């Protein structure tokens, strides 16, 4: 019988997570311990603080995932852990714990690419997704336009040339004094604002597949300085609209050009309500299917790691126990 029950582990940034997934999509447990409260007072993730917290939390989180799954440790067929990209000290905690458990249980260890894991989040809720798919992978660290041609086969059509979309949200939230994390704060506030109030720039909107978000961030800073009386809800809504507009315009164009059957969102920024709305509308208008993973599957979690690990194990076999962490690991492409 193929390895079916995967224990997934995720510690690449500020979430300590463990999950048990059967057959690549049947989620039996998905436990996430967030460090948001710990990092909020610093206005962002502090790597050393994150690494220390992962050490304290990893085994309790694994234990809880096993307990919730109702499965015994001897029913685990493989252990998968994110080994990059991410914060190296944080990644090493998950990788070390996963290898140790694989060694004791005498089961395969699988090092998982965090970006590939995000792409597999959609398949947890829609295992029969048809490809090719155009996926917008948008998070605090990444902004990528990806064509997924088949399982484990991707083409990165474009990426940000400067700030990631999530980074722009965090920086704008800081300028507007909305606290950390910025994404959810801007999302909430935008509900009370007019997205057409201010015409923020749509950088590179009609120019290739790459993105640039540092210009819109600067435009927000300048606008707030020159027009201190503009309601901040209008600023937030107009900024959010500009970002969603560029992302969706390009994804739509890519779907047309590459004959994709659907549009898909992945990554933490995929939890943004306006972006979700815009993707649904675009898909409906163009006769495409829209796949919007639940918010819990957009943000970092270990179920997506277990799912990607299940596919990788079947395709490539186990990773060596000498695998390290790679903070700048890239998405494997043809």
């Amino acid at each position, binding site marked *: 019988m193929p390895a079916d029950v995967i224990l997934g582990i995720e510690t690449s940034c500020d979430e300590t997570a463990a999950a048990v997934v059967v057959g690549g999509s049947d989620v039996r447990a998905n436990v996430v311990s967030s460090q948001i409260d710990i990092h909020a*007072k*610093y206005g962002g993730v*502090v790597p*050393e*603080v994150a*690494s*220390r917290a*992962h*050490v304290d939390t*990893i*085994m*309790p989180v*694994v*234990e809880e995932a096993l307990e919730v799954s109702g499965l015994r*440790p001897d029913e685990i067929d493989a252990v998968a852990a994110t080994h990059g990209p991410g914060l*190296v*000290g944080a990644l*090493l*905690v998950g*990788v*070390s*714990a*996963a*290898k*140790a*458990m694989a*060694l*004791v*249980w*005498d089961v395969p260890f699988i090092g998982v690419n965090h970006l590939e894991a995000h792409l597999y989040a959609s398949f947890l809720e829609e295992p029969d997704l048809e490809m090719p798919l155009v996926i917008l992978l948008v998070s605090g660290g990444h902004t990528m336009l990806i064509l997924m041609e088949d399982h484990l086969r991707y083409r990165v059509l474009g990426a940000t040339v400067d700030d990631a979309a999530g980074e722009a949200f965090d920086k704008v939230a800081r300028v507007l004094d909305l606290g950390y994390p910025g994404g959810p704060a801007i999302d909430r506030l935008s509900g009370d604002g007019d997205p057409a109030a201010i015409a923020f720039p749509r950088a590179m909107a009609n120019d290739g597949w790459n993105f640039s978000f540092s210009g819109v961030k600067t435009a927000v800073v300048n606008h707030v300085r020159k027009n201190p009386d503009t309601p901040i809800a209008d600023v937030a809504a107009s900024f959010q609209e500009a970002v969603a507009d560029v992302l969706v315009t390009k994804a739509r164009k890519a779907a047309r050009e590459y004959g994709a059957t659907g549009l898909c969102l992945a990554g933490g920024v995929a939890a943004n309500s306006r972006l979700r709305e815009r993707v649904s509308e675009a898909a409906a208008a163009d006769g495409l299917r829209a796949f919007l993973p639940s918010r819990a599957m957009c943000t970092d979690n270990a179920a997506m790691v277990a799912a990607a690990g299940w596919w990788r194990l079947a395709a490539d076999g186990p990773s*060596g*126990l*000498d*695998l*390290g*962490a790679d903070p700048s690991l890239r998405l494997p492409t043809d």
Partner: protein
Amino acid sequence: MSAPLILAIESATSCVGCALGTVDGVLAATHTVQARRHAESLAPQIQSVLAEAGRNVRDIELVAVDVGPGLYTGLRVGITTARAMAHTLGVPMVAVTSLEAVAWQAGADVTVAIDARRGEVFHETFTAGVGSGPAVGPPLDAVAPGRTVVGDGAEVYESQMLESGAMVDHAVTGYPVPESILALAAGRAHEACDPVGIQPLYLRAPDAVAKFGTA
């Protein structure tokens, strides 16, 4: 009843390795001194000492680990590996400090100084096997006229230490080796505790925390 089989893990300094044995001695041990390769090296080393000793991972009855002070990343690799193994095996753990291990290697009354980077050392003075308590600070805090200092921190700051009248003993290995962790752990197997009770000894707050003045 036979003496418990102990797996000892060292990953807190430039050295990464492990040893398998009992209070009666070492069955198999290995280590390398290759900075920043701790995570890559440790799990294969554990497999290799088990194979060399002809033992199964399930035979391990106690996991010992160097809890530092030392290099944060290596320290976390060692502690996380050790805790995950002990937890999964359902066996207790014993903590040994890097300073105790180097003092044990010296086998005499010494001050141990381990390089803490940023112009500081982790240090502790041992008298008749009893330590003064681990501390971090400038190299001169670790020395006194006539005192013998050992450890990689003594080597890095040798000229300063000699100037203040201390002696530096190069014959002692300057970093802890897994055999020392094993030997010290075997002597305190009665202190074994649950894996959650094993805490890393950082001795310094993260920079951001120090800056913001909160813990």
